[in-house]
C-alpha cells in the first residue's frame, strides 16, 4: 500500500505536467505555431548550452527555497502565502548587511545569510504568533505581511540605503555568493554558489521533518491538534515554529537574489513572484523537499527557456506563462487525476 502511495504521489505531478504541456501544444497549434519547434526552442533556451544551463540553475535556486518555505508550513497544515514577503525582507536584510560593513568573507557572508534567515523568520513569526494565540487565519495575515514587506522595503531602499535612488550599490565581494569558477564553466552566466545552499536547505528540511522529534511534533499538530495536546505537545509553540522555519527558508530565497544573482536590491514595482511561484513549486513537488527540488528545476527551466521561444520559434512569451498556468491548474486539480487513475485501475481489473 505504501509503495502504491509513493507511486501515486510521483505519478500525479508527472501526469499534470504532461497534460499541461499537451494543452500548451494544442494552444500553439490553434494560434498557428508549430508546437514541436516551440518546445524545441524552449528546451534550447533552458538546456541548450552551458550558459543557458547556468542561467536555468540560477533561476531554480530561489525557487527551491521559496518552495521549501511553502512546503514546510504545509506539512504542519499551515498555508504560508507569505513566502513572497519573506523573500523580499530576506533580500533586503542580506543586502543591507552586505553593505553595512566590511569583514572577512567567512564572517560577512554567513552573517548576511543569517540576516536574511532572521528577517524571513520574523515575517513568519508574526502570522504564526497571531494564529497560535488569537486564532487569526495565517492566510490573511501572510497576505498583509506581503504588502508590508513590499512597501517598507521600497521605502528603506529609497531613504535609508540610498539617497532617493532606486537601486543600492553593489555588495562587496566578501558578502557575495557569486562564483568566478561557476561563471567561467557556464560561459559567464550568473550562476552562483547559492544552489549549494538551496540543496543543503532541502536536505535540512527533509531531516527536520522526517527524522527529528521537531518534525514529528509539527506534523502531529498539523494532523490533529487535539491528540497533540493530549500527548503533551505545545500546539501554539509548534505552530509558531513551523511558520518561523518556513519564513527562514523564504528569507534565504531572497538572499539568493540579493547576494547571488544581483548583488543589489532595487525598488520593486510589484512583487518578485518568487514567493508566489513557490506555492506552485511546493504543490507540484508534493510538499516533499526532494520533490520541491525537481519541480523548482522545472519552473526554472520553463521560465528560462521561455526567452528562446519568441526568437527561436516565434511563439510569444505569454504562451509560456499560459503553459505554466495550465500545469499549475492540472496539479491543483490533481484529485481529478487521482480519481481518474483509480477509476482506470478498477476498470482494467
Amino acid at each position, binding site marked *: *500500500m505504501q509503495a502504491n502511495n509513493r507511486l501515486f504521489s510521483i505519478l500525479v505531478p508527472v501526469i499534470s505536467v504532461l497534460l499541461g504541456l499537451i494543452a500548451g501544444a494544442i494552444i500553439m497549434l490553434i494560434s498557428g505555431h508549430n508546437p514541436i519547434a516551440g518546445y524545441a526552442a524552449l528546451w534550447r533556451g533552458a538546456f541548450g548550452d552551458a550558459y543557458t544551463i547556468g542561467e536555468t540553475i540560477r533561476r531554480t535556486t530561489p525557487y527551491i527555497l521559496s518552495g521549501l518555505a511553502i512546503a514546510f508550513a504545509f506539512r504542519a497544515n499551515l498555508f504560508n502565502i507569505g513566502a513572497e514577503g519573506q523573500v523580499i525582507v530576506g533580500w533586503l536584510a542580506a543586502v543591507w548587511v552586505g553593505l553595512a560593513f566590511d569583514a572577512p568573507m567567512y564572517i560577512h557572508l554567513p552573517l548576511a545569510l543569517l540576516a536574511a534567515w532572521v528577517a524571513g523568520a520574523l515575517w513568519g513569526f508574526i502570522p504564526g504568533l497571531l494564529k497560535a494565540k488569537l486564532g487569526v487565519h495565517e492566510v490573511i495575515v501572510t497576505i498583509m505581511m506581503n504588502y508590508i514587506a513590499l512597501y517598507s522595503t521600497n521605502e528603506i531602499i529609497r531613504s535609508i540605503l540610498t539617497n532617493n535612488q532606486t537601486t543600492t550599490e553593489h555588495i562587496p565581494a566578501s558578502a557575495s555568493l557569486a562564483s568566478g569558477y561557476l561563471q567561467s564553466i557556464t560561459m559567464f552566466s550568473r550562476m552562483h554558489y547559492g544552489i549549494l545552499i538551496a540543496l543543503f536547505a532541502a536536505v535540512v528540511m527533509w531531516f527536520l521533518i522526517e527524522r527529528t*522529534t521537531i518534525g*514529528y511534533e509539527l506534523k*502531529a499538530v498539523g*494532523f*490533529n491538534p*487535539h*491528540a497533540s495536546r493530549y*500527548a503533551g505537545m505545545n500546539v501554539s509553540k509548534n505552530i509558531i515554529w513551523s511558520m518561523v522555519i518556513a519564513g527562514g527558508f523564504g528569507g534565504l530565497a531572497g538572499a539568493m537574489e540579493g547576494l547571488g544573482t544581483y548583488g543589489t536590491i532595487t525598488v520593486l514595482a510589484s512583487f518578485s513572484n518568487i514567493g508566489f511561484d513557490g506555492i506552485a513549486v511546493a504543490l507540484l513537488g508534493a510538499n516533499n523537499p526532494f520533490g520541491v527540488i525537481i519541480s523548482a528545476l522545472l519552473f526554472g527551466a520553463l521560465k528560462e527557456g521561455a526567452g528562446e521561444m519568441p526568437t527561436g520559434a516565434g511563439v510569444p512569451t505569454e504562451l509560456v506563462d499560459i503553459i505554466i498556468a495550465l500545469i499549475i491548474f492540472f496539479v491543483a486539480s490533481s484529485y481529478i487525476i487521482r480519481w481518474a487513475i483509480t477509476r482506470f485501475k478498477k476498470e482494467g481489473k
Partner: protein
Amino acid sequence: MGYVIEMLNIRKEFPGIVANDNITLQVEKGEIHALLGENGAGKSTLMNVLFGLYQPEAGEIRVNGKKVAITNPNIANDLGIGMVHQHFMLVEPFTVTQNIILGKEPKTKTGKIDLKKAKKEIQELSDRYGLKVDPSAKIRDISVGMQQRVEILKTLYRGAEVLIFDEPTAVLTPQEIKELTGIMRSLVHEGKSIILITHKLKEIMEVCDRCTVIRKGRGIGTVDVAKSNPTELASLMVGREISFKTEKKPAEPREVVLNVENLYVKDSRKVDLVKGLDLQVRAGEIVGVAGVDGNGQTELIEAITGLRKSESGTIKIHDKNITNLKPRKVTESGVGHIPQDRHKYGLVLDYSIAENMVLQTYYQKPYSKAKVLNFKEITEKAKTLVAEYDVRTPSVFTKARALSGGNQQKAIIGREIDRSPDLLIAVQPTRGLDVGAIEFIHKRLIEERDKGKAVLLVSFELDEILDVSDKIAVIFDGKIVANVKPEETDEQQLGLLMAGSNAKAGEKNAGE
C-alpha cells in the same frame, strides 16, 4: 418472505489483508438482522461494500432479488439502502433540517430551497417513528444521541427501506440505548429492514431476529436469535469459550495515589460542571466512576490530565500537587490516560501505528536522542506492543486510520498501559470492543491493579463498572454523591443514585 438484501460470496481485499472472504448475508424484509464478529472481522467493510463505498473483488449483491452493481452511495440511496455510520457525518453549524436535506434540497417554483416544506416533512418523519428531533436545532447544540437520530432521519428522508447501523450504541448512554431500541422496533413495524452491527450480545438477544456471525473475514453462519443464547453467539464469534464474569482476587488497597479535593471545573461554555468534587484512588484498587453522561465526568478527567483548567480545589498524585500542570507534566508524574474519544485525542490517524505507539514517549530515550528519532527502536517497540495487545494490523507501518475501531482502541490501551503509570485513567476503555477483547482489556486493568497501580475507570456501562471496580463512586451533577461497593449494590440501585434521586440511600450503603 423474500430477501430484501442478499450479499452472496462477497470478497474484499485490502493490501496485505483479506477483509471479507466469501461472506454471505441474507436479510429478510421486516427483520432486524445482527452482524456479529470480533474487532477487525470485516463487518464495517462488508457494510461499506453494500453501501457502495468499496467495490468487492468477487461476489454478487441482490436487492429484492434483482442483481445490482452498487458503485457509489448515491446508487445505494436510490436502491433504498441507508447507512448510519460509526462516526457521524454532520455539518456542525447547520441546523438539523439543513443537514438532512443537504444534497437533496426541495425547491420552490422560483428555484429557492424550500426550507418550510423540508421542515414539515422532517417533523412528520420524526413524529412517525418517535424520534423527537427538533428540525430547527443546530447540530452542535444537540446531544450525541440526537445527532444519531438526525443520521437516521437523513436515511429515511432519502427513502431508505433498509437501514444499516454500524455500532450505533457504542456512543450512547443506557437511556439513549433504550430509546434507540424503541426506534428500531417502530422502524421494522413500518416495514423497514435493519442490519445492526453491535458487540453487545444483550442487544442482539433483545431486538434481533437473526444473527450472521463472521470471524476473521469469513462467514461462520446465520442463527435464529430466539433459538440461541449469548454464550453460543460469543463462542461462534471468537471460536472459543468466553467467560463473561471477570475473575479477580479481592483488592489490597494501599496508599492514596490520586487525591482530588473540592474540585471546581467549568466547561467550554463557562458553566460549572464539576462542583466541589472529592475523589480518592488508592494503589492496588480500581475505582469505577458511574454516572449518566454529562454529569462532569469528561471535565473531571480533563482537569486531572491537564487538558482543562481547574477553577479551584486541588489534585494530587502521591502528595505532589498537579493541579493545572501541563499535560506532559501530568503524564510524567505517572498518569496514563485512555481517552474517551479515540479519534480526537487518542490517535493521530494519519500517523502509522508505530508512530502512534510512541505518542507519549517519542521525546525520550531510546526513541529519540538529541531530538533525532530512532526508527529502529520505535518500530521494535510497536511490534512488541502490537503482538502483546493483539492489535490486528497488516504491519506497524499501516496508518492508524486503516485499522478497525476496536484495533485502534487496543493500540491506545497498549501504549498507555505499557508505560506502567502509577495512575491509569481509563475512560470507556472497551467502547466498541468485541467480547473477547473486552475480557482481555479487563484482565489487563486488573493486572495493573494487582501490580499495585491505581486505576480510575469511567464508564457509562454499569455491567463494566460492577464487574471490574473494587469501589464505585457515583457522580451526579458534578459531585460524587455516593460511594458504594460493587458486591453490595446492583444496577437498579446504581441507576437511582445516578439519577440523583436517592443520594441518601447510597450514603447509608457506603458502609466504611
